[in-house]
Structures are given as C-alpha cells and as structure tokens.
C-alpha cells in the first residue's frame, strides 16, 4: 500500500480547535489544539471521560470531529474510517486487542493488506514479512503460532507489527500496559523507544503516571474534554500530573496505619480446582485474618478469578476446604456464603456486579431485599428501599440525580461505588475485592482505597485481587503471588517490596519454598483422610 505524501515540515499529527459533540448532546472533546512533532513519544493522560479516547478515535478515523480539523502529515485530512487513517500512516493499538483468535500471528499482521496476487493470499510471504518486521523492530513473535495460544504480551506485539506492516508513521497506543507484567512492560517500552528513534511518532494513552513518566518525551493532560496543558516529562512529577488531571491537589498515596490483625477469619487449605477451561488451582494454603488486607498478585489468567469465585461460592472447589470464622463453607450456596459474612466485588462489574437496567436503589438491595426493614412477610416496602438507597448514595458519594436512575447510565467509577456500597454496607467478615479500581477514575480510585482501609480497620478481613501492582503494594499488608494456579510467593511484610521483585515471581523466575509459603499456618491437611485434624 502506498502512503499518501506528507508535507515536509510541521507536526506528524495535530488537532486544530477540534470539538466532538455526540448525537445525545454530550460534548466529549472541546476545542482541543494538539500538535505532536515527528519522532516524539507523547503521552496523553486524563481521567475516564476526559476525552482522550475520543480524541484518539478521531486521529484514527473511528470518529469524525464536529468542528475543527485533524491534521496528519501537516495537512488537514478528512478521515472517514480506519482505512483512510491507515492509508495516511496512522496505526492504532486498541486497549482490547483487535486480533482474530483463530488466525496465526502472521495472518493477523497482514490482515487487510495481504501479500499475494489477484485476490489470493500468499501464506509464505505473510510469514516472511512478519518475521522480518519482528526482527527489524525487536518485537519478538512466533509468526506461525495461533493468536489464541500466545501470551498477551505477544498479542500486543502482534498489534504493533500490524501497524508497522501498514507502514505506520504514527502509532497510537491505548493503555497498552494494562494487561502486561512489569517485565513485559519494560520490553514494550524498549521497543517503543527504538521505534521512536527510527522516526516513529507515538501517542501513548495511559492513566499510570509512573509509566508515563518513564516512557514519554512530553505529556498532554486532558480534563473534561479540554486540553489542560502540555509539559515536558522531565519537568513533571506524578503529583503535578495528577493534580492537572483532576484539577485539584490529589495524591493516590493512602495513609494507612500498620495492620492490627486479630483472629483468623478465612482459612483455606489444600484448595484445588479444575475448570472445564483448563484453568487449575493446586493445593492453595493461606489465611486471612480480621483486620488485614492480603493482596493477590499474578498475571491475569493464573487462577485469580477462579479463586475469587470459589471463595464467593460461585464455583465449588474440587479438593480442599474453606473455613470462614471456623465454619466450613462447603455445602453453602451463594446466599449462604453471603449470610456467613462474605462480601464480593467481582472483577467484571458489568457482567456480574450489577443488574445494569435496574435502578441504583434496586441494585443496592439485591442481597437484603427479603428481610426487615426493607420487606416484611414477603412484601417489599418501596419507601424503605428508597431511603436505604439515599443513605448509601450520600455515604458513598455516588453522583446521581436520583436513586431510580438505572445503573447503566452511571460512569464506571460511580457504578463501582454502588457495588462497593452494597458489599461494604452489609458489614462483611471477609471482603473479596477483585480489580476494584479497573476503569475507575483517579478520584473514585482514591475513594475505594480509603474505603478498603476503613473496612480493614473496622475488623474485616480483606482479600484484594488486582492486576495493578502499584495498587497491591500500596494497600496490602501481606501479599501472595499466584502463578499457574499455585501459590508461588508469600510476603508477610510489604514495606520495601518493589514491583519488579514481585514481577519475577509472577513470571515464575523465582519461587518461595513450601516452608516459607506455609509458615505459621495450622493444620495443613484437609479433607476426609484426617477429619480429626481439621477441626
């Protein structure tokens, strides 16, 4: 494919007074002026809904500006779709990767611009081309491997190779590190720097300020649809960027006193699980005490989701026992788990965290609608439901005009507040919090952190599962690492622990011995063979 000619000088991409107003009247981007010169890594940061994604979509032709102009290669362009953006040399790596799972890496790389003559595809040329691009760019991939069978890191490299195959001169990376381990992130950054040194212009969208500081040359900050400012990365601190993003001084560091753990609340012994999908858990042994936050780290898909769902009662373990305050939870249904004192913030709040078309008020009572004061003798009291909702909306600062608003209309952060409000107001003995701050803006993130610490201080046992290591290290009193469904590390003191060090365990480079993993745990056997010891 031939790229259209670019002007000689000037920015690689630019926005001139760009405004985007959606049909429903929402103004996502307001009069933004942005210029990115060739060969620069420009980070674009902002809270959810700040307009950064919409702006990027306009550069890639997925959205068209309502007013103003998009410039590529120094000239105003009308991008009717990704095809015209690609033709101009703009490539985009989406947050949720756009790959065909049953195709090979090479097939995905060439898709849409296949080598071959007269309507045919030349498979050999596709593999060769992919291998050559991989070698030139340092983005290592196996061209013949099926995408569904390769790691997330390789999938992402495949996406970048896709853009390179299309001769991209501008690369838009939308939250590329969200699913990567620290090591994979470093590799990605090294490759991105190499591309930049070869003349590539990179737009890096992120909300991880530490990574933005590491990778970018300049940072543009967006807030509420407007460009607040652009600063040289060298002159910025995480704190200064955060306050630009939210418009006020805000720190994500949570002040928390040392934990004062008391008696063991959750006791997991020899827990094993075999899922139809092939995801296993093997012989997990750990305790969580009242008054402590125990973090669970691991690359996504190493058993964290299964663990959370087993503890919440949504799946049954194949082997082993789970005790909550001395009660065996085997044989309890999900409602039984809840009555026993388990609260659960699921990782996919849109799928199983809330009933999206039901109101805030209804979502807040789904676990307690059948008892006083909300209901008596099987009859619900709407007034009580509403009062209950209003109380929690106030307490958890849920931004909504009314409790009757369907939760679908809420932003990610506000929806998560509804779920956290429901789970915490039940006064759980054990709170399982899975990816609590995923897709949540900084203000709400901080709010969640404070609430988790408050729940801990009130005597709840908290199991915090997260893909965000910064968050885990900031909140956890103790930290466990899962790899391939097994516990591979246990840190009883998280002070001074670095992300890089935890990353080594997540990747399986290092591993703690069984003694260290189980030190201090009582009776490690569970199951029918010695019932006497488990009591």
């Amino acid at each position, binding site marked *: 494919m031939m790229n259209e000619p670019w002007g000689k000088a000037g920015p690689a991409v630019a926005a001139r007074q760009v405004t985007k107003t959606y049909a429903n009247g929402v103004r996502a981007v307001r009069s933004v002026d942005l210029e990115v010169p060739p060969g620069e890594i420009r980070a674009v940061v902002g809270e959810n809904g700040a307009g950064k994604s919409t702006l990027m979509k306009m550069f890639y032709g997925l959205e068209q500006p309502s007013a103003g102009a998009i410039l590529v290669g120094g000239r105003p362009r009308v991008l009717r*779709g*990704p*095809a015209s953006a*690609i*033709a101009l040399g703009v490539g*985009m790596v*989406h947050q949720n990767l*756009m*790959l*065909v*799972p*049953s*195709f*090979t890496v*090479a*097939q*995905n790389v060439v*898709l*849409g*611009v*296949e080598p*071959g003559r007269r*309507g*045919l*595809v030349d*498979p050999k040329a*596709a593999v060769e081309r992919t291998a050559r691009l991989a070698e030139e760019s340092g983005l290592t991939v196996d061209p*013949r491997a*099926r995408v*569904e069978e390769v790691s997330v890191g390789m999938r992402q490299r495949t996406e970048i190779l*896709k853009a390179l195959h*299309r001769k991209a001169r501008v690369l838009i990376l939308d939250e590329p590190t969200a699913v990567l381990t620290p090591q994979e992130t470093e590799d990605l950054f090294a490759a991105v720097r190499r591309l930049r040194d070869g003349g590539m212009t990179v737009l890096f969208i992120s909300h991880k300020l530490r990574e933005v500081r590491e990778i970018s040359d300049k940072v543009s900050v967006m807030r509420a649809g407007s460009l607040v400012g652009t600063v040289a990365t060298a002159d910025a601190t995480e704190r200064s960027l955060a306050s630009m993003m939210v418009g006020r001084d805000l720190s994500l560091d949570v002040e928390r006193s040392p934990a004062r753990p008391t008696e063991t609340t959750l006791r997991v012994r020899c827990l094993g699980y075999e899922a*139809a*999908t*092939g995801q296993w858990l093997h012989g997990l042994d750990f305790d969580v005490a009242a008054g402590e936050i125990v973090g669970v780290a691991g690359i996504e898909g190493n058993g964290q989701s299964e663990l959370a769902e087993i503890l919440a009662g949504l799946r049954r373990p194949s082997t082993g026992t789970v005790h909550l305050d001395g009660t065996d939870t085997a044989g309890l249904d999900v409602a039984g788990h809840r009555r026993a004192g388990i609260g659960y913030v699921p990782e996919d709040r849109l799928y199983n965290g809330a009933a999206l078309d039901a109101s805030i008020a209804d979502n807040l009572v789904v676990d307690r609608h059948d008892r006083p004061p909300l209901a008596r003798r099987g009859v619900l009291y709407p007034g009580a439901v509403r009062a209950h909702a209003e109380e929690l909306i106030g307490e958890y600062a849920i931004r909504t005009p009314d409790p009757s608003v369907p939760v679908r209309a809420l932003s990610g952060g506000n929806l998560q507040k509804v779920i956290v409000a429901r789970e915490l107001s039940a006064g759980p003995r054990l709170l399982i919090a899975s990816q609590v701050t995923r897709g949540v803006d900084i203000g709400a993130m901080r709010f969640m952190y404070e609430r988790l610490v408050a729940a801990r201080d009130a005597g709840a046992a908290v199991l915090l599962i997260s893909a965000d290591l910064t968050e885990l290290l900031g909140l956890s009193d103790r930290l466990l690492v899962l790899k391939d469904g097994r516990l591979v590390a246990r840190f009883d003191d998280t002070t001074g622990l670095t992300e890089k060090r935890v990353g080594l365990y997540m990747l399986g480079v290092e591993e703690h011995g069984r003694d260290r993993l189980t030190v201090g745990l009582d009776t490690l056997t569970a199951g029918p063979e010695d019932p006497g010891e488990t009591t």
Partner: protein
Amino acid sequence: MSSVLDVVLSSAFLAAVLRIATPYLLAAFGGLVAERAGISNIALEGQMLSAACTGALVAGYSGSVALGAVSGVAVATLLGVLLAALRLELGADAIIAGIGLNLLASGGTAYAVYSLLDDKGGTSGLKSGSLPSITLPGVENVPVLGDALSGQNLVTWLAFLAAPFVAWLFYRTRFGFHLRAVGEMPDAAESVGIAVRRVQYTGLALSGALAGLAGVFLSMGYVSFFVRDMTAGRGFIALAAVFLGGLRPWGVFLAALGFGAAEALAVQLGTLDVPPQLVSTIPYVMTLVALALYAWRRKRRGRAVPAAASL
C-alpha cells in the same frame, strides 16, 4: 440382512447417494459461508424453496431451462441479501428474520403457484423441463464408481465441486480471509479497514446462491415440476451438517454426504419389507444423533471457536 448389504453395496445405491446428497451439499455450503461470515442463515430452507418454485415457473413459461435455473438462483441470492439487510440495516435477529423468510417462502411459493396455475399442489401441469445430465467420456469404464458417476445431473457435479471451491475460497483468497476474520472478530476486521458489511452482504449473497442451486436441483434435476413445500426440511438438515462438520469445508462435505447416504438408505429400505414410517425417520434420527455427538465432542474439547486450517 444380506439383501440390505446387497443394496448398500450396489452402484445404483452409490448413484442414489450422490443424487440425494446434492441438495444437502449445496445448501450446507451455503450455510457454512453465511455462518463463517457471522450471520446464521437459517433461511436456507426458504431460499431453496423459492429457487425451486421460481426455476420451475420461469422455465415453464419461458421454455428455457437455463433461464429458469438462473432465475431460481437469482431469487435465492436476493433472499440472502435481504436476510443480511434485515440483520445489518435494521438490527433484526438473524434467527427470527430467517424464520420469517422461511414462512414467507412457504406461503409465497404456494400463493404464486395457485394464482398462476390455479393448482394448490404444484406446477405439475406446467411443462418446464429439467437440467441436463452429464456423462464424462470414458467415466463408465471406472470400476464401481463408473456406473454411479455416469449420467449424474449437472448440478450434482457442481455440488461436488463446491467443496474444493469453498475450501479454496476460505483459505487461499483474500475474500475468504476477510470473510473468516469478519465472522470471528468483526471489530478486528473493521479496525484494519475491511469493509465488514460489504463482506457480509457478499457472503450472504453467495450463501443464498448456493442454497438456490440446491433448490433448482429439487424442481429441475430429476423431476421437472415444483411441489408445494418440496424442500421438506432439507435446509435445516443442511444447517445441522454445517455444525456437525465443525464449520470447516471438508467436515461439512462429509456431514452432508452422510445425511445424503442416510436418506438414500431410507429410500432403498423402503423397497424392502421394513415399515416405511420407521424408515423415513432415518435421516432425522441420524441428524439428532450426529448433533448430540458433535455437542459431546465439543464439550470434551472445551473450545467453541473452530480453529481454521492454517493459511
């Protein structure tokens, strides 16, 4: 029992299998193309029926068998495009829209025949002719197969050529490459600049055309008239073959051939001393058993997406 074996091993039986499998093969490939394009074509039945009716009527009135066949295929193609439009432009559920098209075809063909010929049963009163049979020179000298292949209808030859054609289309051509990407991951296809809708329209048109060829064979292959509802569920059995074949061309080929063999067996056993009602259930029982087997196998493998053959 030996009489059954004699029947099954005869070249006459083999010839019957090829003949009876023809509409299953064509319709199943039609279903396969649509399925891989991401829109289930449950309207195969109606497309076949419309093509059968149109073919017989046009051939009868114009006196040209070729014009009839082309018109039949064209109508089914349009129905494929209509299904795509209902799905893509109006956001209708493909299954519901497909059921609607099937009902429309059933009622519409009966109405057309009645209003034109004043006959509620079919077009037997109209002289419409049938498509030619083909005998390759020398083919009858091939042992066993020779007699079976000799004198098969043109459409039967096309049905057997459809398997390599669809496999080639899927795995060697740019269009097939795009079609599979669109069906599996439309967002990914769109993000690389593939015109998703255009691919889906083309796929559904091809799907309708293949089903149309199957329909034309029914009314213009060995008979030369249209009978009301003469497809008798073949479109649905073909759809079963699509899934039983694991959404792959050669798998679908074998499955459709299997259904053809089952029906041929039922026909042959009908001449023996077996209750005909029982015999006529064979293809349908086999469909259910096969689908249960397929589901069981897939469950054991624990994978939902068919791994396409490599590029």
